[in-house]
C-alpha cells in the first residue's frame, strides 16, 4: 500500500465527512458569525475605538477587519467547539454505528484509517477558520471600505496585502487548533460513545483556558495548547511579528506528536467490539 492509496483513502474520508449535513451545518454557523457582525456594525456604526472585541472597532474603517473581528470572536469557543464535534466523532462515531468493524475487516488497515481520519479532522480545522475569514472578507468588502489597511503598528498596507494577511491569519488559527484536534481524535479512539468524546474534548479546551487565566500557574502557560491562540493578531503588525506564531506552531506539533502516538497505540491494539 503506497502513498497514492493512502492519499485516495484520505480523499474518500474527506468527501464523506464534508458531505455530512452535520459538518456543513457547523461550517454554516461559523460563516454566519461574520455576516452577523458585519450587519450589526453596518447598522449601528460599531463600538467606539478601543471598545468591544479586538478589531471590532476597526470594522467600519476597512472590510478586512470584518474577517479579523469574526476570527477573534469565534476562535475561543465556536471554532474549538466545532472541532471537538468532528474530532470526537471521528473514530467513536464509527464504533457507535458499528461501521468500524467493517472498516477494520475491509481491511482498511488500522493505522492508515486513523491517519486518514486525523488528516481530515486537520483539514476541518483549516476549513473552520478559513470559512470565517473568507465570509468575513466578502461581507466586509460588500459593506465597508476597500481602501488601504491600517495595521496595528499604525502603518498602512494595500487592501490586497490586508486580504492576504487575513487569509494567512485563518491558516494560522486553523493550524493552532491541531493540538486540540489531536486530543479529540485520541479521546475518540478511547470510547464507543461519540458524545462523550466530544464532551471530554470541549472539557480540555475549558480547562486549558481556565489555567491560562490563573497567574499562579503561569509556569504551565507555555505548555497549554490554548496559550498562543491569539498570536494570529501579530500578522497585522508591520513588520509581522512571527515569534508568538512560531512558538504556537511548535507547541501544536508537540501535542499532535504526543496525542497522535497515543491514538495510534490505542487504535492499532483495541478490540473492536461494537
Amino acid at each position, binding site marked *: *500500500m503506497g502513498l497514492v492509496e493512502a492519499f485516495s483513502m484520505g480523499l474518500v474520508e474527506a468527501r464523506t465527512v464534508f458531505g455530512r449535513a452535520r459538518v456543513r451545518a457547523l461550517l454554516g454557523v461559523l460563516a454566519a458569525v461574520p455576516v452577523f457582525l458585519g450587519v450589526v456594525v453596518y447598522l449601528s456604526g460599531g463600538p467606539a475605538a478601543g471598545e468591544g472585541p479586538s478589531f471590532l472597532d476597526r470594522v467600519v474603517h476597512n472590510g478586512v477587519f470584518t474577517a479579523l473581528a469574526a476570527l477573534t470572536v469565534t476562535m475561543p469557543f465556536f471554532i474549538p467547539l466545532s472541532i471537538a464535534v468532528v474530532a470526537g466523532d471521528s473514530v467513536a462515531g464509527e464504533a457507535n454505528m458499528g461501521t468500524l468493524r467493517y472498516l*477494520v475487516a475491509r*481491511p482498511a*488497515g488500522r493505522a492508515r484509517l486513523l491517519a486518514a481520519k486525523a488528516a481530515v479532522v486537520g483539514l476541518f480545522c483549516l476549513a473552520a477558520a478559513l470559512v470565517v475569514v473568507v465570509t468575513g472578507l466578502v461581507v466586509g468588502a460588500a459593506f465597508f471600505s476597500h481602501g488601504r489597511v491600517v495595521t496595528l503598528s499604525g502603518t498602512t498596507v494595500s487592501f490586497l496585502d490586508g486580504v492576504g494577511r487575513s487569509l494567512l491569519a485563518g491558516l494560522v488559527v486553523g493550524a493552532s487548533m491541531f493540538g486540540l484536534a489531536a486530543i479529540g481524535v485520541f479521546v475518540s479512539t478511547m470510547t464507543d460513545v461519540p458524545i462523550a468524546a466530544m464532551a471530554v474534548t470541549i472539557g480540555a479546551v475549558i480547562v486549558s483556558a481556565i489555567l491560562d487565566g490563573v497567574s499562579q500557574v503561569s509556569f504551565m502557560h507555555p505548555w497549554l495548547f490554548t496559550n498562543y491562540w491569539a498570536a494570529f493578531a501579530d500578522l497585522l503588525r508591520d513588520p509581522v511579528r512571527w515569534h508568538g506564531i512560531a512558538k504556537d506552531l511548535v507547541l501544536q506539533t508537540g501535542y499532535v506528536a504526543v496525542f497522535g502516538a497515543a491514538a495510534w497505540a490505542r487504535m492499532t491494539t483495541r*478490540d*473492536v*467490539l461494537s
Partner: protein
Amino acid sequence: MAAALAVETHGLAKHFGAVAAVDGVDLAVPAGSTYGFLGPNGSGKTTTIRVLLGLVNPTRGSWSLLGEPMPQRAMAALPRVGALVEGPAFYPWLSGHDNLARLDALGPDGRSSTREKRIGEALARVGLTAAARRKYKAYSLGMRQRLGLAWALLRPRQLLVLDEPTNGMDPQGTREIRHLVRQLAEEGTTVFLSSHLLSEVEQVCTHVGVMHRGKLLMQGTLDELRASSAPRLRVEPDDPARAMEVLGAMGLRDLSRRGPEVVATLGDVAPEECNRRLVEAGVGVRMLLRERASLEDAFVALTGEGFDVAG
C-alpha cells in the same frame, strides 16, 4: 494457491475479564465446504468470528484464513474474505449504493474501474437494485441485511463469513438467502455460516461445528453429527400401553407417547426385532419407522441441554 483449510484455528481463546467467551477452539473449515457454525446465543460464535476477522485480539491461540497466518497477513487474506458480522452497519445518511462505493474505496483490491459494475451486480444478486439510491436510514431491517450481504459479495471472494445472515428477514427473504448460499457454494466459495437456527444449517450446510459455552463440542460433516446421537424408533401400534411394556422389556430407553405413536431411542436394537416382538405379543403394528436423529436431537445429545438455553 487454495489452502486445504479455509479457516484453521488452534487453541483460540478470548477472555473478557474472568469470563472465557471463547475457550480453546480448534476450527478446521475445509475449503469448498459450507460450514454451519452452530450454537445458542451467547455461546461464543460472534466473538470467534470477530477474532477470525482481526477485530478482536485473542487471549491465546493462533489462526489462519485461506492459508495466510493471521493477523500478520491480514492485508493479504482479508480482501478475499467477504463478511457479515453481527448484522449490517452502514452510514444512515448515505444511499445503499454510496455506502458500498465508499467502503470498497477504503481498502485494497477495490478497483474503481469495475466498481459501478460490481455494485450493480451485488445489489441485483440480493434484490436491492430498486432501492440502490435510497438512503440507508430508510431501509427496512431485511433490506439492511440484504445490503450487508451485497457488501460481502462485492468482490470475488474465496471465503464468506456470514453471521446470522437471515436475521430480520421474512420467510421469502430467508428462502432467497438459502438459495444464494447454495449458489455461492456451487461456485466454489467456502461459506462459514453462523446460526442459531438448526433448520437453516440442516438445509444448506455440508459441515457443522457446535459451539457451547465458548467451547467447540464437535465438528465434522453433517452426517457425522447426526450419527453421534442414536437413531430413534417410531411405532404406531393399536395398543400403545402394551407396546410400551414390550419395548421397555427389550431395554429401549426414552420411551414416550406422542399421540397415537410410541417413540424411543433405538440404540443397538434392530428395528425388525422390535417389530417381531410386538407382533408376537399380540400388538398390531400400523407403522414402524427407524428415524435418523435430527440436528436438534444431536445438539441436545451433545450439550445435554435444549437449544434455547444460552451458555
